[in-house]
């Protein structure tokens, strides 16, 4: 049952990530940034809702959290893009390439952690749990 729920979520999440990345394809990896942000926010909200309801686990968490959000977001793609900034063979000076890589790396983590936290706390506050 767990496997089926994970598979269903992933069968939607992974292609959705691919489509968003393709649509937002540009010199900057906005697509990956967007899906990582969205998935982190949804998972934060979901955990907040479960917390407010006093539940620690649920089939919804397996389907939406592990399957959908887990596959909508990607850590490998993110890391590969950070490396691409560093390895860019353009006429960009090395210091600028490292700076761009560091900016993308740090901005992704800070933004995703922030939306996950806001989503979690927001859901708990709205639904009146203990946090």
């Amino acid at each position, binding site marked *: 049952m767990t496997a089926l729920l994970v598979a269903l979520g*992933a069968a939607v999440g992974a292609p959705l990530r691919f489509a968003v990345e393709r649509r937002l394809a540009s010199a900057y990896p906005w697509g990956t940034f967007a899906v990582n942000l969205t998935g982190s926010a949804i998972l934060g909200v979901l955990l907040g809702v479960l917390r407010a309801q006093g539940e620690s686990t649920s089939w919804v968490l397996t389907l939406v959290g592990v399957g959908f959000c887990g596959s909508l977001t990607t850590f490998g*793609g993110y890391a590969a893009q950070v490396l691409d900034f560093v390895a860019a063979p353009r006429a960009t000076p090395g210091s600028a390439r490292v700076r761009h890589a560091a900016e993308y790396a740090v901005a992704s983590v800070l933004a995703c952690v922030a939306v996950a936290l806001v989503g979690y706390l927001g859901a708990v506050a709205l639904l009146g749990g203990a946090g």
Partner: protein
Amino acid sequence: MSTVRRDELAAVAVGGVVGALARAWISLTVPHADPVAWPWATFLTNLLGCFVLGVVLDWVDSRHADWLVLHPRRARLARPLLASGVLGGFTTFSTFSVEAVGMARWGNATGALGYAVSSVVLGVALVALGRVLGSALFGPAPYDLEGDEEL
């Protein structure tokens, strides 16, 4: 240029299911019950995925020109299936984010910072290591940095 073909989406879906099931299996095998504890399952999953992704990207890049001529379908679908699909579905950013939040929230701010920084630094280093190993194994790849990255 931004069109998405149906067979590409299908390849990503199939690969994504395989990757996600492997990730879920690891998370059940190495449970993360205590929110302040180091999230070993996600940590190791993401790092392993980064390393394999580096190797796979290099292999696909090194074969792409040949495949375009001999196996056009493989040239189109290898990257969506393996990189975007299997390894994109295997690694995860959302669980990483909420685990860092959880550690910080329940009093282990140092651990959260260490988890975030080490995941990112080691992840990027392992993609690079995978790329280097891939180049050694499969020959030099035309490292197409101008191309679309869809992972």
